[in-house]
């Protein structure tokens, strides 16, 4: 079948995009994301250990929750200061796969639409990036809970 003019143009365009987009070396970006991802997790572990030292009576689960909340808050403030975007450009998946990326996605969407107002801008668009994560998380975890109940437990 003959290719339509649109298809040909699209092909030419994607070749052009490949040609002009900056060629970051793949190995380098892999190394960056490994190192930054590792560092992010080690920082979280250190925060976790410090919390455990400061509050020896608190449950382990609660300490892990405090750690998560700290990481999220720090990532959001770094986003506000504009530091996170610079780090993320360097670290690739190393910064957006950890929970810091989740936090960054919420706060950057919310800041981006500040100009449209706090209700219809910020509040509406806040979950525009992480929406898929929350929706899929709730759907599949509910399914997991129900299946678990059917196999291992009693209904009601």
């Amino acid at each position, binding site marked *: 079948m003959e290719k339509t003019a649109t298809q040909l143009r699209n092909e030419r365009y994607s070749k052009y995009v490949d040609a002009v987009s900056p060629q970051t070396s*793949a190995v380098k*970006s*892999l190394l960056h*994301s*490994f190192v930054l*991802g*590792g560092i*992010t*997790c*080690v920082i*979280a*572990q*250190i925060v976790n250990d410090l919390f455990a030292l400061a509050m020896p009576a608190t449950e382990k689960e609660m300490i892990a*929750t405090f750690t*998560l*909340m700290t990481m*999220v808050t720090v990532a*959001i*403030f770094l986003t*506000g*200061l*504009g530091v996170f975007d610079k780090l993320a450009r360097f670290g*690739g*998946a*190393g910064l*957006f*796969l*950890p*929970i810091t*990326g*989740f*936090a960054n996605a*919420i706060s950057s969407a*919310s*800041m*981006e639409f*500040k100009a449209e107002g*706090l209700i219809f801008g*910020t509040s509406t668009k*806040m979950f525009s990036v*992480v929406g*898929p*994560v929350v929706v*899929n*998380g*709730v759907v*599949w*975890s*509910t*399914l*997991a*809970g*129900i*299946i*678990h*109940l059917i196999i*291992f*437990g009693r*209904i*009601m």
Partner: protein
Amino acid sequence: MEILNKLLTYLIVFAVGGAFCLVAQILIIKTKLTPARILVIFLVAGIALEAVGAFRYIKEFAKAGATIPIVGFGAALAKGAIEMARSVGFVGAFAGGLVNTAFGIGVAVVASFVVTLIFSPKSK
């Protein structure tokens, strides 16, 4: 000895956390999936790992290296849903995931709102 153990723990955390991100970066480069899709893939993987009971061992081994990547978020969702389903019955499955992750989501929403009030987006 204590110090050595601690260092070994940090090394494992670094390696496992880094490895998750490495896999994600490979996916980005090789498949050109969008970041949102990769987040969802890792999230669902976390839910599946927790549902079959494997995540508990990964968490014991790698600590923050397993819980901080989005895989841990998925596992927390599944853990909450399963625990609540077992304690209050069928309807618990709908609430448990959100209940268990509400700390993170709640602080993310509030902090984002506050940060939006304080800062203006930087022009690129």
